[in-house]
Structures are given as C-alpha cells and as structure tokens.
C-alpha cells in the first residue's frame, strides 16, 4: 500500500481504568459480532442446508432422507455432454464467456469513464446519472427495449437499412452461437455505470497531496495513473470485482428478459439452470447440487484472489 496508509501497526486500545479498558478492548468485536453471527447463520447455515439437500431426493419440496450423490452424478455426466449440448454444459460454458467479458469490460470501461469524469469537467452532474440510470430501471422492461433494439427486423439493423446502409447485418440475438454476447452487451450497459461510480469514489478518496507531489516530480499523466493512482485503487478493484462477479453469477433476469433463454436454450447461465431445476422443474436436489458446484467454483476463483489481496495488505 501507499506510504500514507500503511496499516501495519494495528491500533490497540488505550490502557486506562481496568473495567473501562476491558470494555474498550472488546467493544470493536462486540460491534462486529452480530453481523458476523448473522452471516454465519443465514449464509453458511443455509449453504449447509443446500448442500444437505443436494444429497437427498428432494423434488418439489425439501425432503430430508439422504439418498446419495445422484444429483452430482447427473451434473457430472452433463458436464461432458457437448454434442448436443446439455443445458448444464451450455450454462457453464456461457458462464465462462459471460463472466470473463462482463467483469473485464465493466472494470475497464468503469475505470476509463471514472478517469474521464475526474478531469475537472463541466456537467459532471448531468453525465453521472446518464451512466448510472441503467441500474435504476427494472430489467423486465429494459430487457424488452434491448430485445427490440437488437432484433434485426425491428431495431438497429432495420433502421440502418432504412437510412441506406443495407449491407449492415447484426443478428447475434437470433444466433445460438452469439446470443450470449448480446447478454454481455446489455449486462455491461447495466452495470458499468455503477463501477464508474465506485472508481470515482475511490479517486475522490485519494489524497490530492500525493498527486501533487508526483506532478511536481515531473510525472506525466500516464505515469501518474499507471504508477500511483491505479495501484492506490486496488481496494476499489476488489470491491468492484466482487460486486461484478456476484452480479455475473446472479444474472438470471437479464437472460430471461433479453433472450427468453436463447435459441434452444443457448443463452442459459448457471443461475437460470439453478432456478429452473429448483423451482420450475421441481428437481430441488439437482438445483441444490448445481448451487453447491457454483459456490465451489466461485471459491476456487475468489479465495486465491482474496488471499493475495488481504495477505498483502496485512503485511
């Protein structure tokens, strides 16, 4: 971390009268405890419950008699069914494409817009809500607007043909191989403004003395950002990454509103699979198993990242 914000010496409560001191001693932890307890019960407890259900024969309703790992066996088999692709295979391959592009583009675009916005520009108050508003609108409706816009017979393509550009062709939303990329487009549109806001807050939180000092030392703008500001934004990257990764994994309504699942279910994401199996197909055990597999996959990606981020901070 930076020279200013070294975190190493952990603050220790001041030593004063015994009782007050002891209270002061434990107070921070008492403050944190309810939140942590809630998390343990309502998140990890429920994860345990879900994991348990994945080993049962739960259908429409939870049933608590353990019946073995049949749900996992099915998912395992589906994982390798690529021709014709099983719904699960489609979901996880889409997740890889969608997750990578969505998180990557949102981070890059969000940071880029935030840096532009931070150049002491006029009209920031107008531009900021313009980039943010997609988050405010319910996707049930913006999904319809996007669907029209991307539909070759209704939206962009037809309009451009109308204006004389007849060779223009854009039918990704109708194509089973490209439909997932239209989900990326709509997703980036929806979330990148918020990422911009996060980076903007981060930029505004940076001590301007540091930047002034660097400028006096003769750093160019590029160097300033590359060497000083962006490294200082690392905690914001972590926040943004977590928020985006969580949105990517939970992008259920996006797929449904935009593509209704895509041609032959080709736009499915694991959250669609999970919801379909748990609630629509009444195969709660399979739905639970897919949730557990998703959580394990996420932890395989997130935990190393967290480890490196948090460990470095503590040094």
């Amino acid at each position: 971390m930076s020279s200013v914000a070294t975190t190493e010496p952990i603050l220790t409560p001041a030593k004063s009268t015994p009782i007050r001191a002891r209270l002061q001693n434990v107070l921070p932890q008492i403050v944190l405890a309810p939140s942590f307890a809630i998390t343990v019960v309502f998140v990890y407890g429920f994860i345990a419950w879900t994991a348990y259900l994945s080993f049962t024969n739960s259908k429409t309703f939870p049933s608590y008699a353990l019946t073995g790992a049949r749900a996992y066996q099915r998912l395992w088999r589906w994982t390798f069914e690529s021709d014709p692709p099983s719904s699960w295979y489609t979901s996880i391959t889409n997740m890889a494409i969608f997750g990578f592009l969505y998180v990557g583009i949102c981070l890059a675009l969000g940071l880029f817009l935030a840096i532009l916005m931070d150049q002491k520009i006029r009209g920031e108050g107008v531009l900021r809500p313009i980039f943010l508003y997609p988050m405010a609108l319910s996707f049930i409706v913006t999904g319809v607007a996007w669907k029209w816009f991307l539909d070759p017979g209704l939206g962009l393509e037809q309009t451009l043909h109308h204006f004389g550009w007849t060779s223009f062709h854009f039918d990704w939303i109708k194509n089973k191989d490209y439909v997932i990329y239209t989900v990326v487009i709509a997703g980036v549109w929806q979330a990148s403004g918020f990422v911009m806001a996060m980076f903007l807050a981060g930029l505004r939180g940076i001590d301007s003395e540091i930047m002034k000092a660097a400028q006096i030392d003769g750093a160019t703008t590029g160097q300033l950002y590359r060497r000083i500001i962006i490294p200082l934004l690392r905690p914001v990257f972590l926040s943004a990454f977590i928020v985006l990764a969580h949105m990517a994994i939970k992008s259920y309504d996006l797929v449904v509103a935009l593509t209704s699942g895509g041609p032959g279910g080709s736009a499915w994401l694991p959250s669609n699979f999970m919801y379909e199996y748990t609630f629509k197909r009444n195969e709660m055990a399979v739905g639970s198993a897919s949730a557990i597999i998703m959580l394990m996959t996420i932890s395989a990606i997130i935990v190393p990242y967290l480890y490196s981020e948090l460990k470095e901070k503590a040094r």
Partner: protein
Amino acid sequence: MRKLMTSTAIAALALSGLALTGLTTTAGAADKEVQMLHWWTSGGEAAALNVLKQDLAKEGYAWKDVPVAGGGGDAAMTALKAMVAAGNYPTASQMLGYTVLDYAQAGVMGDLTEAAKKEGWDKAVPAALQKFSVYEGKWVAAPVNVHSVNWLWINKAVMDKIGGTQPKTFEELIALLDKAKAAGVTPLALGGQSWQEATMFDSIVESTGGPEFYKKAFNDLDEASLKSDTMKKAFDNLATIVKYVDPNYSGRDWNLATAMVIKGDALVQVMGDWAKGEFVAAKKKPDTDFLCYRFPGTEGSVIYNSDMFGMFNVPKDRKAAQVALATATLSKSFQSAFNVVKGSVPARTDVPDTAFDACGKKGIADLKAANEKGTLFGSLAQGYGAPPAIANAYKDVVSKFVHGQIKTSEEAVTQLVQAIDDAR
C-alpha cells in the same frame, strides 16, 4: 479472535433460538376474506378474474389479491412455495395440473368434496380434468377453464388472396404454406421460444401418429412409442414446418407472432386459444377477419391445458370463504362470463354456449365431443401430459432440434428418451 468467537456464538444462538420458537399459533386472517394468489395481472385476464371478485362481493366476501406475474406462473409458484414454507396458506392459488397433485401429496390442500357433491362437479367436469382436481377421492381444486392448443389461427384476407382452403392433412397444410410463400407472405408465424415450439409440436405429434399414439407417448410416456419411427416422423414433420418461418423468428414473443397474422404479414400461427384474445383486442371477428381451424389431423380431439384454483387446507374459520370461492368458480354463470373474456372454454361441459363467438362455440362442442370419445389429452408442452421435470426436458429437446443443436430426428428421439428417463 476468541472474544469475537464467543460474542458470535452467543448472538448466533440467540438468533437460532428466535427462529425456532413460536411454532404454536398461526396467523389469524379475517374469516370473511378470500386470499388469492394468481398471475392474471393485466388487461383482459384481470378483467376476467374481476368477475369472480364481484360475484364473491355479492355474497359478502372480501377479496385479498396476491398477484405475482412472470414466467407464465413460475414466479407465482415460487412465491407459493415460500408462503407454504412459512406456513401462511392462501385461501386458494391459481395452479397448473401436476403442481396441484404435488401440493396435495404434501398434505397442504383442503377438501371440497362436500361442495362438489352438492354442486354435481363429478358429472359436469370432464374426467381428464378430474385427474388433477381430485386427489385420493377428495376435490382439492376448482378448474376454471379449458384451453386447447391444437388450433390454427389464420388471416382470412391472406387466405382468400392465395385461394387457400382449410387443410385436412399435414401435407395439405404444407401445400397451403407453399402457396403463401409463393405469394410473398411469411407462411408460418412462430415465436422461437421453447414453450411455443413444443406447443406446436404437441399438435404435430398427434397429427402424425393419431390420438392413440399421442396419448401413449405424451401422457403415458410409453418408451416404445417415444422412440418409435412415428416419433421420428413427427420430428421430421417439425423440421419441414419450421422451414416456413421468417428469419427473425427466434426468441419472438407469442403475441408478436400473433400480431404478424393479425396484420397479414403472416398466414398462420399454431397456438393455444389465448391467441384469440389478441385478435379480439385488435377488433377482429372470427370468420370475417380470421379463421380458427383445428390443426389438420387432430380434428375431433382436444389437446388441453387448464387453469385451476388449488384450495389450501385453511383453518376452520376461513373454510366458509373457501367453499364460497370454489362454488362461485364452478358456477355456470361465472364459467361463461370468464371464458368469453379469456378466450378459453368452460371447464364444465353443461354451460350454454350462447355468449361465445364462433371459435368459442366450436371449442365448446369439440371439448364435449372429445370428452365423450375419450380424446381429451393433456398437453405435454403445457404441463398437463407429465410432471414439470419431464415436460421441461421435452421442451429442451424440441427447442434444441428446432435451433439445430440436435441435428437429426434419430438423435432427437434418443435425446427425448434419455431426457425423460433422467427426469423420471
């Protein structure tokens, strides 16, 4: 860390304790009130249901509306599951076929047999519907309507222009589509979403294999029929007919496909009778502006789905309201008034057809005949042929076949058998 763990443990215990206490009393609800979960939330649907609300108001029962739209009832069913898990049963909920049986099996449905006896539901309601509304001899649900899916909706102006006549066989239908194509009209209006494709395929299967075959394959799930050559032929027929769609059909909503027929951009749509609502809303009249024919080769039988009001096991003080609701739902006057608006036909066969338009009259007559002949079959695509796990697996296969992930009819049949087997 230790202190944190201790505080955490105490807080966690307190929370869990809170969660487990208080299992004794149930939330009280007004006894002159009907709490109703449904997904008929907009326009004509809501107007149709409003008739029931008013009927009940006349008897002094208040209507507590719990509308949850989305996904053709998926969101409502998710909400229902949560309500039941929380122990707050609604008086009744709109439900589809197998869901009623699932909840009945879980022991949360009420018993309306007394009212059923008094009102003579056993005789009036077709036996095929009673399979879902009666569980272990007890009436647990009140059917509201019968939709049927084996319809062709045709723009009459386009039909006249190309000089077409009602197709009697699948081959004649294809010939008709060819004519439209030659005239430069999109022959088939289709929304390329799995449920629409599968709904059309229901009709194709019956058209290809006949009523007996449909029943064996899609209601009894007979494996030999599912992988028979007839089923392969049905998939081949599906491949033939989807060649007649326009290039942008994929992902289109059903009502936009109907709009194509209404506007004369397309000749025909294969869709359930709710499509009629779109024609009527556009001020079109049957026989003058549009035509309703049975899908060729399915004449004389009805592939149906039905909306039901599942009745929950409510405490005694709420029972009277529930009985009033069920009785009003199955009354002849409501069945007529509701279904005229909704586009479907009454769930009892003894309702006079005077208030219905030509297509409605035909629907009522067809239902009656099919009920007597035993050719009233549940639609697999609409969840009346098999439980949801199987019905959805079926939709997957049909949709993958239409969009080319599954390339041949042999492969489609293998996949269908496998998928149904998995879902069993």
